[in-house]
């Protein structure tokens, strides 16, 4: 047994003698040459667990419970001193993080950063370290490794940066690689490449891997053992087959069921409460949605939209960057247009132009009832609500701006109705955004959009920042609102499973252009453009 964890408990000081427990009573075994996935939503304590295994918890702030045991090859690391960790860290156990850009030092070439570890831990000479660094870069699949040694981190793409991080981590032949959400910040196609690289390295080098993620679909592809955590506690542990095919814990069942799947399009997604209330897995499959919502008149038309940005280079030179090039689209009443693409494809810029926030350089947007018939829900519910406004203030602002309601009382009543519509309690009125969870905040943002009774709602990655279980609730809410008010949606996301669940029609964007468009069912079943095919193949968990 490589690593055994027993009774792990981590408390965090929150000031003035108070503390919160981040992890309690956690125990699992990690054998040699095995990949174990630690799965959980935000606040589940999975990252804290990883840090405590590396002995990297912030000192003074975090405290390990007295009965905790972290046993590395028969030695309890918690009883040894700091020297023991020092000897293990970076040599026997290595770690890669979510954000490659912040994990690499921006002022040194990547080669120098790779060589530092090699010379420190392996005692290699300068030349030998350089040779080895080039070998490592080749191993992680970076083209022209010799030349790339002198590249600075910003000269590499996000995927390449993560590859460099992986090269650094495996440079000392560690026996355990801890990967904390290593692909969350990356595009789907890049994610697929990194996943394959990690699996290959794990096999070739005979490492064990602790893979930390919130995404169950990823887990099904690479792990053999799974540990599911929630609120710092272990919910279920077992082999991959066992956990995926016959989950015993209602929370695991819920996690598996809440996530939209590519194969099916249920009317509603099951939500976590259904399972936690004790009902086992929904007996009958949920009713499937009719393939296409009935189309009415066209509410939103965009023709030939273009947006350029001028980038200054040096003193005189400037370069024109086209974010969106010649995009035309139509959205009918009650229908949902999905816009998919990777980062830099121009989908957010398109959304901002449709919502009237950005003025297109060329082309036009026509909306049935005028400019405020389109509203937009953003990705980050923590940034899209003014932190100094109460919920009442947030909801009444659009009413005030458009002269809806003559008195304050009337507007307050309307704001309460809006809260009802998005399923929030009426006593939320006097509270501030920071008192709500991410899902609740997204509901407030949706309520604010509904205030003006828009005909079209642009959802720009609106559920991407939310946990799987919350995501399902918000998607259901959006679906209900659409049925009730016959709104049209422009649903922008990098997550193909979510778009597939929501959309009637799809627009695939690459580098500002539409490369393929059509009805969702046809497009997902029979993609024509090679880029669309690549995107679909990269979606995890399709096996």
């Amino acid at each position, binding site marked *: 047994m490589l690593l055994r964890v027993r009774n792990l408990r981590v408390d965090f000081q*929150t*000031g003035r003698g108070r503390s919160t427990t981040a992890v309690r009573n956690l125990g699992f075994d990690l054998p040699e040459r095995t990949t174990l996935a630690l799965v959980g939503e935000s606040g589940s304590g999975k990252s804290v667990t990883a840090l405590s295994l590396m002995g990297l918890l912030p000192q003074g702030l975090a405290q390990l419970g007295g009965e905790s045991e972290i046993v590395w090859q028969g030695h309890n690391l918690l009883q040894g001193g700091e020297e023991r960790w020092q000897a293990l860290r970076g040599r026997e156990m290595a770690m890669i993080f979510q954000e490659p850009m912040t994990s690499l030092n921006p002022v040194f070439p990547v080669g120098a950063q790779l060589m530092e570890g090699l010379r420190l831990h392996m005692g290699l000479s300068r030349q030998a370290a350089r040779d080895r660094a080039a070998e490592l870069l080749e191993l992680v699949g970076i083209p022209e490794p010799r030349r790339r040694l002198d590249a600075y981190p910003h000269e590499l793409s996000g995927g390449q940066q993560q590859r460099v991080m992986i090269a650094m981590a495996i440079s000392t032949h560690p026996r355990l690689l801890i990967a904390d959400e290593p692909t969350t910040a990356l595009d789907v196609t890049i994610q697929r490449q990194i996943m394959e690289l990690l699996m290959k390295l794990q096999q070739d080098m005979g490492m064990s891997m602790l893979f930390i993620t919130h995404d169950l679909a990823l887990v099904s592809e690479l792990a053999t053992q799974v540990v599911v955590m929630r609120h710092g506690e272990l919910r279920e542990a077992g082999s991959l087959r066992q956990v995926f095919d016959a989950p015993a814990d209602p929370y695991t069942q819920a996690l598996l069921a809440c996530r939209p799947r590519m194969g099916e399009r249920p009317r509603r997604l099951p939500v976590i409460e259904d399972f936690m209330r004790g009902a086992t897995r929904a007996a009958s499959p949920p009713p499937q949605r009719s393939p296409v919502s009935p189309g009415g008149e066209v509410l939103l038309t965009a023709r030939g939209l273009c947006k350029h940005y001028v980038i200054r280079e040096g003193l005189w030179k400037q370069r024109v960057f086209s974010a969106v090039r010649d995009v035309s689209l139509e959205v009918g009443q009650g229908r949902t247009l999905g816009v998919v693409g990777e980062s830099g494809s121009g989908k957010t810029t398109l959304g*901002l132009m449709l*919502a*009237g*926030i950005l003025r297109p350089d060329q082309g036009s947007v026509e909306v049935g009832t005028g*400019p*405020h018939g*389109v*509203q*937009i829900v*953003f*990705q*980050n519910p923590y*940034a*899209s*609500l*003014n*932190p*100094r406004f*109460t919920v009442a203030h947030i909801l009444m*602002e*659009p009413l005030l*701006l*458009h002269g809806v309601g003559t008195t304050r009382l009337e507007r307050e009543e309307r704001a309460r109705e809006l809260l009802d519509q998005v399923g929030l*309690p*009426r*006593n*939320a*009125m*006097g*509270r*501030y955004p*920071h*008192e709500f969870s991410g899902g609740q905040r997204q509901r407030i*943002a949706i309520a*604010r959009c509904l*205030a*003006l009774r828009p005909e079209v709602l642009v959802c720009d990655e609106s559920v991407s920042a939310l946990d799987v279980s919350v995501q399902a609730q918000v998607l259901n809410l959006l679906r209900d609102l659409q049925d009730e008010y016959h709104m049209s949606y422009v649903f922008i996301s990098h997550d193909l499973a979510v778009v597939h669940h929501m959309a009637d029609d799809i627009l695939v964007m690459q580098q500002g252009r539409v490369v393929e468009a059509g009805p969702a069912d046809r497009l997902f079943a029979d993609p024509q453009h090679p880029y669309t095919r690549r995107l679909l193949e990269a979606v995890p968990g399709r096996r």
Partner: protein
Amino acid sequence: MTEPVRSPGLWVLAWRRLRSDRVGLVSLVIVLFYLGVVLLSSMGWIARDWTREVGVNYAPPPFWANDQDETAKALPPPPEPATPPSLYGLTDPLGSVLADIRREYPHDLVTHDLPRRLTLPLGGDKWGHDVLTKLVKGSQTSLMVGLVSALLATALGTFLGALAGYFGGWVDDGLNWLFGVFTAIPYLLLVFAIAAVLQERGVTTLILILGLTGWTGVFRLMRAEFLKHRSREYVLAAAAMGASHARRMFVHILPNTSHVILVQLSLNVVGFIKSEVILSFLGFGVPVDVVSWGSMLNEAQNELVLGKWWQLAAAGTAMAILVTAFSMLTDALRDALDPRLQRRED
């Protein structure tokens, strides 16, 4: 219906945190005390008669008087001359008028000089003014100059910074150029230049000088804040709802930068109080008929040669205490208003 819940806003939370910060609280009490004194004095309830010469020249404070020789005696008021002095055979052209006035208003021309006191609580100056009342009046001037000019500078800096950061483009370029011009000239030189051009000396002039030159620091910070906030999603959401530029700038963004403004304001108050003192000390400050800490220190340099240290000590101590308390309060406010700290506590 359920009872509506009102949550504590940012200011309530800030006040709670400030209350638990002992240093900050003491500083707040000291600053409030100064403000109270200034208020009373500007209402004319205290220190109105600071110009009265109540003591002997350089009257020492009581605890210092023991060491002094006893030559200084209470001087009786000078006897009024019974007869007009000899005019060498000339007739006084105003003599008859004066006689009339003397007949009609017998009390107005009588000097009611009380016997001058040998010691004063904080000593006296060259003319026998009470340093304590002078100090109170001086505090009023210095604090008024500090507060009003800081308000002016902060408002100006905030407004220009908001314009530059929010609109960007040529507005930003233009205002940055102005900012560059102001910061390129050494501060005191700029202030002297403006003072020399304005000619007229007075409290208003002083406030204008300090306010119009001191906005640059606030401008730089507020520009950065607005630059950061203008593309935040909550501002975009306001734009999507049809909020005007002014509404986005001042209703949505401004409250989110209030902690920066407040801290800048109090830093400016401290800075401008010191600037006023320096300017008055160098003779560019308040006119002769107005007393401020700076003019007191200016007088004190001559007195110090004679060993009369109390005016210097009084003005210096008063200023030191206020400036220290204000700086501490600023620190405490910065901690109390930092939204990141607030999140950690939740």
